């Protein structure tokens, strides 16, 4: 059977997220509790988490999480990594023995900064250099897959139910100010660990529920700009779209969200002149980045958390606020189990992105 990257595999899912916008850190057991409630929305073929603010002691280093199929692939990847980066720490990611998670790849973690000489030779900025190195490993080194490459954040994923994946990675030992979680229901997969969600590049991580019908239009759009969709998954292409719009085109995150979920022409035609011009220009320029079909997406980054829903609201996504915290989940019950009396609960509507910015105190660093 072909795995992700060799064939396009659609899937349904459950998603959840918690953010503390003041940067107070939350234990991983909270998000596990939330996603576990939606057990039936996944089928055991993939679960995962993204956590921001978990590595304060290495806040300025890129944290690479890598799956290896063999010792040979690790050797090849490390040769490349050590040549292109100054690696501070190289270690196995600690895991807990649990029979619910089957045999998988070796899982390693590196804290590293780009090799300055190589980076300056490449004439790329730090992020582009790092992104290209990650793409190189994932496309050229057989059996090695970098599944997390941001700073002070990390993705944890595996084949299994999300709550078991959380136990496996000992997420109750991690504290983060932003958590996202995903339970997967692929319709056809042998269960490849790299194919689980979240999908990540640099700071961006995405969990997603749905199957976008615009996939190939979006893929062929983004591949014009040096991206290579190796996973052939919706999450991958959506992550790249955001990365491109925000990092390369310098768009504010909510403008990038408008690109993906632009309102319908019927609405735009009746808007006041300035707004109409904005959306008309946006749709004309970024027609290839419009995302279509049912989806709910939660984008995590060190800037904050963005939740978007498809234009027709074909997928469920509920949001809630309580004090400094915001909660998102495919089902309201998954919010109430960790936050029984929220100040406000609402259903995220199509083409109205919700963005919760992180308001971290600069002096204290990126996390409390």
């Amino acid at each position: 059977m072909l795995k992700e990257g060799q064939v396009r595999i659609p899937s349904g899912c459950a998603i959840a997220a918690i953010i503390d916008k003041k940067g107070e850190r939350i234990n991983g057991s909270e998000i596990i509790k939330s996603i576990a409630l939606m057990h039936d929305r996944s089928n055991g073929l993939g679960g995962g988490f993204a956590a921001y603010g978990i590595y304060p002691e290495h806040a300025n280093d890129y944290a690479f999480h890598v799956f290896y199929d063999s010792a040979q692939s690790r050797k090849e990847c490390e040769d490349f990594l050590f040549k292109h980066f100054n690696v501070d720490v190289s270690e196995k990611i600690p895991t807990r023995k649990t029979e619910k998670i089957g045999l998988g790849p070796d899982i390693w973690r590196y804290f590293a900064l780009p090799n300055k000489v190589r980076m300056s030779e490449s004439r790329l900025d730090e992020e582009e250099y790092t992104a290209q190195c990650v793409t190189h490993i994932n496309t050229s080194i057989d059996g090695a897959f970098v599944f997390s490459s941001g700073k002070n954040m990390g993705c944890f994923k595996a084949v299994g139910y999300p709550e078991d994946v959380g136990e496996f990675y000992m997420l109750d030992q991690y504290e983060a100010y932003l958590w996202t979680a995903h339970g997967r229901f692929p319709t056809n997969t042998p269960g490849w660990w790299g194919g689980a969600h979240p999908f990540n590049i640099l700071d961006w991580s995405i969990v997603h529920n749905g199957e976008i019908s615009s996939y190939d239009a979006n893929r062929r759009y983004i591949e014009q700009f040096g991206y290579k969709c190796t996973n052939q998954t919706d999450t991958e292409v959506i992550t790249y779209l955001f990365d491109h719009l925000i990092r390369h085109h310098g768009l504010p995150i909510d403008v990038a969200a408008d690109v993906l979920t632009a309102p319908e022409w019927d609405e735009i035609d009746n808007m006041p002149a300035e707004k109409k011009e904005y959306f008309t220009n946006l749709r004309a320029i970024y027609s290839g980045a419009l995302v279509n079909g049912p989806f709910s997406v939660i984008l995590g980054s060190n800037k904050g958390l963005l939740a978007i829903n498809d234009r027709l609201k074909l997928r469920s996504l509920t949001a809630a606020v309580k004090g400094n915290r915001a909660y998102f989940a495919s089902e309201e019950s998954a919010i109430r189990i960790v936050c029984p009396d929220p100040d406000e609960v609402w259903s995220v509507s199509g083409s109205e992105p919700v963005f919760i910015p992180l308001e971290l105190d600069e002096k204290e660093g990126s996390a409390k």
Partner: protein
Amino acid sequence: MINYIPREFDIVRDRERCIDCGCCVRQCGFDCHYFDDDGKTVVADSTRCVACHRCVDLCPTGALSIRKHVCDYKDNANWTPRIQQEICRQAATGGVLLSAMGNPREYPIYWDKILLNASQVTNPSIDPLREPMEIRTILGRKPEKLTAVKKGKSQTEMPPQVMLETPIMFSAMSFGSISLNAQKTLAIAAKNLGTLFNTGEGGLHPELSDWSDYAVVQVASGRFGVHKEYLNNSKFIEIKIGQGAKPGIGGHLPGEKVTVEVSNARMIPEGSDAISPAPHHDIYSIEDLRQLIWSLKQATNNEKPISVKIAAVHNIAAIASGVARAGADIVVIDGYRGGTGAAPTRIRDNVGIPIELALAAADQRLRDESIRSRVSLVAAGSFRCSSDIVKAIALGADACYVASAPLIAMGCHMCQKCNTGICNWGIATQRPELTRRLNPEIAHERVENLINAWNHEIKEIMGGMGINSVDSLRGNRLMLRGIGLSDKELEILGIKHAGE
């Protein structure tokens, strides 16, 4: 004179039904029908019949039918009857064989070897009757990125854009090759449909000035009818480098078609042959094209997008890329099935490549060069129905040009005799007694009905795929699967085989 060629059709008259009213006599511009010596009985000379069906469709008693004349040749898979007849025609005249309309030969029609996708379970299909289904299409050069420092306000300097309410436009047919009534029909329909018609290289007749906002004006190698007002009375300007039906050669409107009105619109003497040279004599290379594009932008105060129409030839991907880099805002590719008022038969039937392959190759090339999103890509060259258009958009087209289909809606029966200047349906003729048969006030409704029907079908197909905006169909090749195609064909089309 005996020309060694059996007639093509038999006009069959049911004498029991015929009332000798003479309707067919009046209708046939080829003079097939006439009153017998008695002045009362209508008879027919089948040798002139072209199967245009004008007499059949208008006969009040339904007495007429046309049959293919059967006259067998000795079997020969090599020297077919068609080949032998063409030799006889050339032996009789010494001339280049001429034909009209698109290449009718039995080359593969890739549209018929591509199947579309639909949603099941994992992704809901969308009902176009209940949900908005967008087919609005915007053509023109796009800036690299949106400039917006905050949500809701664009600070982007947009080049001129053209907003269409359907991805279907009417392709170039000049006044001269078709009648003013035919052009007016398309102009009215274009306005009502929110799309554009195209003047071809025939100038803009003053009667059409009310529709200049819906006109694409062409600048071709003969530069007929080109002046400042003409350029500015348009939605966009199209430089015609080539035409799918006759790549690499020019055009020739015989003097007998150059009536007073045609001569005025084209700015040439009445009765003179209007000859469009094969190349533009100011474009001998790509850098010259850039200058012409620049000149046209200057002449129109940078307010009009400039499109460049090229025929689908072997190296089309590189040419399309060069054209885009030379500054064209819209690149039009015309496939080898594209129609024509007249073309040398050998050229029409043997030069150029299918639009499906040309479009796929050009779209991919522009993407490989990271410039696809900056320019618009329009496909032309025989779109027969809405699913052809859906497939073209999924291969990568922004919009499609159609001409033969709206002509059929007006009455054309593809008799392929446009080059004779006789058209019983009043379309490809300048004879007043024939052109008045086409009433734009009635015909435009048929054309609009056709495009509206296609729009409905496109929306239905998109809805089935779970797509509610044509933006998400464009270039979405996963929605296509090939059937019975070789690996090479699939590779060029950039699609998978059915079952994969």
